[in-house]
């Protein structure tokens, strides 16, 4: 619905969590009963460190081999399958809340990513992707003559 560009967001980094939370609440108010769609999964947090962005997402129970992380230009996409449990004969389920199914999410970053230097780690169900900026895109210091 209302999505802030990351460019504008980074200036207010201290109050960001509060603002984002408020925004989510607003979106929830205006969208239908707070339902999310598969484009919003997984939820991500984005951090900045030494000019690189770090994207973290909670994606429990996914085979890392079946996760598909690609970067093109300034767009990061995360795709995978969080399958529902399948039941064998003689098993009955009493509750089923897990399993999102197929998901794919594209995230636009505020800079061109150095695709060769991207690192992804998957630990304890948390995905962490470090995305360094491409060198040509780094801010250049301009000397005053």
């Amino acid at each position, binding site marked *: 619905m209302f999505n802030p560009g*990351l460019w504008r*967001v*980074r200036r207010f*980094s201290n109050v*960001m*969590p509060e603002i*984002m*939370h408020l925004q*989510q609440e607003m979106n929830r108010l205006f969208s239908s009963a*707070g*339902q*999310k*769609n*598969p484009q*919003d*999964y*997984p*939820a*991500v*947090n*984005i*951090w*900045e*460190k*030494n000019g690189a*962005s*770090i994207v*973290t*997402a*909670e*994606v*429990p*129970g*996914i*085979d*890392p081999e079946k996760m598909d992380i690609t970067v093109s230009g300034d767009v990061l996409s995360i795709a995978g399958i969080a399958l*529902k*449990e399948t*039941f*064998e004969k*003689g*098993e*009955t*389920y*009493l*509750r*089923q*809340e*897990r*399993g*999102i*199914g197929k998901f794919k999410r594209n995230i636009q970053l505020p800079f061109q990513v150095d695709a060769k230097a991207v690192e992804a780690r*998957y630990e*304890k*169900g*948390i995905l962490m992707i470090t995305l360094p900026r491409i060198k040509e895109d780094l801010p250049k210091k301009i000397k005053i003559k």
Partner: protein
Amino acid sequence: MAEQEMQKTQNVPATERIRNVKTFTPRVDIYENKDCLFLLADMPGVDEKTVDIELEKNVLTITGRVDDGRINDATMMYSEYEIGDYERVFTVSDEIDHDKIVATVKNGVLRLEMPKAEKVRPKKIAIKAA
């Protein structure tokens, strides 16, 4: 599938906790076959050291502690999810063999195998005529 709420559900605590962190309800699957009850819980961020399973009488409590998720020297630019502990309580029937519960954690998913006690067989209670 699109209808499913994808955000974590925050617990509404009956009592206040000492640690000032939010707690969330892990999503679970529970299924059974004739010998065993299985429980799977999505708890990203926990490992075998930080998850706690307690079965007292017939109350099964699952708790998971998660560290605050901050990344050293990094500033948060954008946030969609919050990090907090997990807690969920279930009432199980008495038929679980308490000593044989097996718990494993893999990729942030807790798996509990709770074998049913052998001595428990369905008992039929005869009603005497008054």
